[in-house]
C-alpha cells in the first residue's frame, strides 16, 4: 500500500516536472499551475492559505483554491458543480457526498477532537458547579453535569456565588447551526451519547434523547453556519459574547502555534467527557481533486505542515513533534472518545431538531 502510494507520488512529481518542461518556463518565471478548486469546512482555510502549503502544492503543479462552507451545508445545500473536491470535517458528511456524487474513494488525512474553549473565570464557576473536573492530565467538561444544568434552563446569573459572570442568559455552549455545520453535528453525537447512555442506534433512542438535546440548540437562538464564526467571536468579542464555545482542538492549537497573541493566558481548553473525533475527510469530485487527496494523505511535508495547524495527522509523529516544540498544553492522547452515531441516525436527529426552528 505504502509502496503504491510512493510510486503514485513519484508519478505526480514527474508530471509536475514534465509540465514545467513542456511549458518551457525558465527559472524566473513561476510555472503555470493547474487551478484546483475545493470547498472545505472553514477550520481548514488557514491551512490552504499558508504559503508553505501553497509551495508544496505548486511543486506538484497545483494551485489549490478553497471556499469555506459548513460541512453539512457542503453535503446538502452547496452547488458542488464548480469544485474539484469537497473537504468536510467529518466522516458522516463525507459519506453522504461520496454516495451522492458516486465518488470512488475518500481520503481522511487529519483528525481533531472536539473541545470546549473557555476562560479562567468560567472554569472556576463551572468547577464549583461540578461541570469542570480534573481529568487524566487535562481538565474535562462533564457532559452529564452540563446536561443536568441545561435541562433546568439554568442562567449564568443563577449559579450560586457567581460574581464574575452574572449574565442574564442561559448557560449554554455556543455551537454552530445544527442545520449546516459539522461541529454542531459532532456536538449532537456527544450529547446524544450521554443522554442515551450509549451511542444512539434505534428510533426509540432518538425519541428518548431528542427533547434534551434539541434544547441545547434551540435555546441558543441564532447560530452561525460555520465553525470559524463562533471561534472568532470567542477570540475577539471574548467572554461577554461567547463564554463557552465548541471548537475543534485544531483551531485552538493553530492559534497557539502561530503565536499571534490571540490566545491570551486566561483562555483555556476543556475536553468534553466523553468527546468525539472529527475526521476531516476529502471527497474527490474530479481527477484534480483526487490528486489533492493523495498529496494530503501521503506527502510528509504536508503532514508536518498540517500538524502546525493543530491537526492530528495520520502519522502521529507530526502532531507529537509540534506539541513538543511549541509547548502546547494539549494531551498526547485523548481518552474517553466515543463514536458518532451512524450517518442516517445523526441525520434524522438533526432533521428533527431543524424542524423545531
Amino acid at each position, binding site marked *: 500500500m505504502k509502496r503504491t502510494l510512493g510510486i503514485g507520488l513519484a508519478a505526480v512529481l514527474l508530471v509536475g516536472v514534465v509540465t514545467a518542461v513542456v511549458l518551457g518556463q525558465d527559472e524566473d518565471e513561476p510555472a503555470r499551475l493547474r487551478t484546483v478548486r475545493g470547498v472545505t469546512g472553514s477550520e481548514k482555510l488557514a491551512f490552504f492559505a499558508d504559503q508553505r502549503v501553497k509551495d508544496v502544492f505548486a511543486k506538484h503543479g497545483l494551485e489549490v*483554491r478553497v*471556499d*469555506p*462552507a459548513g460541512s453539512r*451545508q457542503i453535503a446538502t*445545500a*452547496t*452547488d458542488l458543480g464548480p469544485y474539484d473536491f469537497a473537504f468536510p470535517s467529518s466522516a458522516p458528511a463525507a459519506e453522504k457526498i461520496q454516495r451522492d456524487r458516486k465518488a470512488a474513494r475518500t481520503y481522511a488525512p487529519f483528525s481533531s477532537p472536539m473541545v470546549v474553549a473557555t476562560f479562567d473565570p468560567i472554569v472556576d464557576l463551572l468547577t464549583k458547579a461540578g461541570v469542570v473536573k480534573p481529568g487524566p492530565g487535562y481538565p474535562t467538561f462533564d457532559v452529564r453535569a452540563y446536561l443536568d444544568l441545561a435541562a433546568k*434552563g439554568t*442562567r*449564568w446569573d443563577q449559579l450560586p456565588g457567581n460574581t464574575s459572570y452574572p*449574565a*442574564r*442568559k*442561559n448557560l*449554554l455552549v455556543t455551537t454552530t*447551526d445544527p442545520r*449546516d455545520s459539522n461541529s454542531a453535528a459532532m456536538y449532537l453525537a456527544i450529547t446524544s451519547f450521554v443522554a442515551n447512555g450509549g451511542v444512539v442506534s434505534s428510533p426509540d433512542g432518538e425519541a428518548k434523547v431528542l427533547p434534551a438535546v434539541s434544547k441545547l*440548540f*434551540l*435555546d*441558543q*437562538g*441564532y*447560530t*452561525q*453556519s*460555520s465553525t470559524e*464564526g463562533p471561534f*472568532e*467571536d470567542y*477570540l*475577539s*468579542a*471574548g*467572554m*461577554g*459574547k*461567547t463564554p463557552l464555545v465548541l471548537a475543534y482542538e485544531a483551531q485552538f492549537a493553530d492559534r497557539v502555534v502561530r503565536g*499571534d*497573541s*490571540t490566545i491570551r493566558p486566561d483562555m483555556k481548553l476543556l475536553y468534553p467527557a466523553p468527546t468525539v473525533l472529527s475526521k476531516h475527510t476529502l471527497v474527490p469530485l474530479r481527477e484534480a481533486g483526487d490528486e489533492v487527496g493523495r498529496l494530503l494523505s501521503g506527502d510528509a511535508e504536508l503532514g508536518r505542515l498540517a500538524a502546525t495547524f493543530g491537526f492530528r495527522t495520520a502519522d502521529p509523529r507530526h502532531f507529537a513533534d509540534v506539541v513538543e516544540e511549541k509547548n502546547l498544553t494539549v494531551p498526547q492522547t485523548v481518552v474517553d472518545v466515543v463514536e458518532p452515531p451512524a450517518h442516517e441516525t445523526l441525520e434524522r436527529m438533526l432533521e428533527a431538531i431543524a424542524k423545531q*426552528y
Partner: protein
Amino acid sequence: MIRRLVPVVAAAALLAGCSDEADPARPVGDPEPGVLRVLAGSELADLQPVLDEAAKATGVSVKLSFTGTVEGAEKVASGAAEQGFDAVWFSSNRYLELVPEAQKRLGTPAKVMSSPVVLGLPDAKVRELGWAGRRVGWAEIAEAAGARKFTYGMTDPSASNSGFSALVGVAAALSGSGSALDAARVNAVAPQLEQFFSAQTLSAGSSGWLSEAYARRAGGTDPGAGVDGLINYESVLLSLNATLPAPLTLIYPSDGVVTADYPLTLLTSAGEEAREAHRKLSDHLRNADVQRKIMDTTHRRPALPQVQPDAKFTVRDLVELPFPGSQSAVDGLITTYFDRLRRPSRTLYVLDTSGSMQGDRIEGLRQALVGLTGADESLAGKFSRFHGREQVTLLPFSSSARPALKYEVPQDDPRPVLDRIRTTATSLDAAGGTAIYSSLRGGYDVLREQINADPDRFTSIVLMTDGENTGSEGFADFQRFHTTLPQDLKGIPIFPVLFGESATTEMDQVAKMSGGKVFDARSRSLSAAFKEIRGYQ
C-alpha cells in the same frame, strides 16, 4: 441569439422609463476585473476613505449600492442580488441566514469590524435618572421610558439594522428567560415592551438620517420637538458626539446588547475574478494597521483579536443577547412591534390627482397605495403595510382639495379597513388643476382635529405632486402659514415625493422647514418611494 435579446433589453429600458440610465438590476455595472460590486447597508458609507486606500493598496475598488435590512435579504433570497452584485455587506448576516433561500447563496464571510447597538443620553439626563457611574439593565431602562422620564429616536426595524437590533435586544433582555425569543415569550413581555417604545418619539428609515435629525432638533434648526436620546450603533453615537455641543453618554445595558459584526460576504454566484477581489480586499481590511485605521476613523471595534480596542470603548466586555433562531420568530417580532408595541402613527397623504397625472401616473399612484394595504407580498412589502392602530388620511386634490378620507386600522382585524383603503385608492381619477399649497394647508385642519383628540402619535405628511403649483396660493403663502403654526403642528415632518415635473427647489424647502425629507420617485416607481417613506412614519 444576441439579436433576439435586443428588443427585450430595449423594452426593459423603456419600462424603466429611461434609456441611458444604468440597468436597475445592476446599479453598479457589469462585472469587471479589479472591481467588487457590493450590495450594502447604508451605514457603510463612512468607510469610503478606508476603501479608497484599499483600492490603492490592493488594486480592488469597491462599488457600493445601498439597501435596507429586509429589502437586502429579499434581494439575496430572490436571486436578484446575484444579477448585479458579487458580494453583500450588511451590519450582520443574522437575518439573511434565517431565510433559507438567502442563506444558500451566501459564500465566504469576512467579519471586518463590530459595533453594539446602545442607548445614548445627555449627561444631565443620565444624572437625573440616577444612572451615572453605574450599569443599568433593560428592565430599568424600559421602566424609565414608560414613565416618560426620557424620549429617544430609533430607526425602523424593518428598514434598518440598528432599530432591528434594538428591538431584538430589548425583547430578549426583558423576556428574562435567557434563551432565544419565540412568539410566546414576546407576548409575555409585550406590556413592558410597550412601555419601552412609548418613549420613542423619532423614527427613521436609516441610522444616518436619524442622527442628523437628532442633531438638527438638538440645535434648534428643525421645528420638531427635541428628543433626549438615541438608540443607535456605538460607532454612530461616538461619531455624532464629535459634532454635538453636549456629547451623549453611552449606556451599555448590563444584561446585554446585540452587536453588528459587518461580514463582507461573497455571493456563491461570484465569478473567479470577484472571488479573488474579495479575498484580497478581506485580507487587506483585516490587516492590523487597517483595523486600527477603521477603529480611529469610524469608531467601530476591531474584528482582529490581535488589535486592542482603544479607550473610547468604555465598556469592553459586552454580554451578547441571544438572537432568534428562525425567520418566523423575527418576522413575528417585527409585526408585533408595528401593530402593537410602538406608538401608533398618524399619516396624512396629500395626493395630486390633477389632469397631468392621467394615464400611467395615476395608475402608479393607485398601485403605490394599494401596495401599502397589504397587496405587496414581498418581505419588505409585508412590513410596510399600514399598521394596526394607524390613522391614515388620504387627501386627494386637483384644482382644490377634495374631502379628506379618514381611516383607522384596527389592531386585531385590519383586513376590512385595509380593503376600504384599497377600494378608495383604485378609484382615484386624474382631472383638473394643481392647487398644491391650499390643499396642503387644508391638511393641517384635519391633523389639528386629530391631534386634539389624540395627541400621542407619530404624525407625518406625505406630499405627492407631479408638477408646478397652479393654485392661487403659492409657496410663499404656505411658508408664511407654516411660521404661524403652533409648535405641535409646525413640527410635523413633511415628506415630499418628487415625481414627473415636480418643483424640486420648493419641495426641498418644504421638507427643510418641516424637518422632513425629500424622496425621489422620478427614476423609480412611486411604490418604491412610498415604501421607503414608511420607515420615517
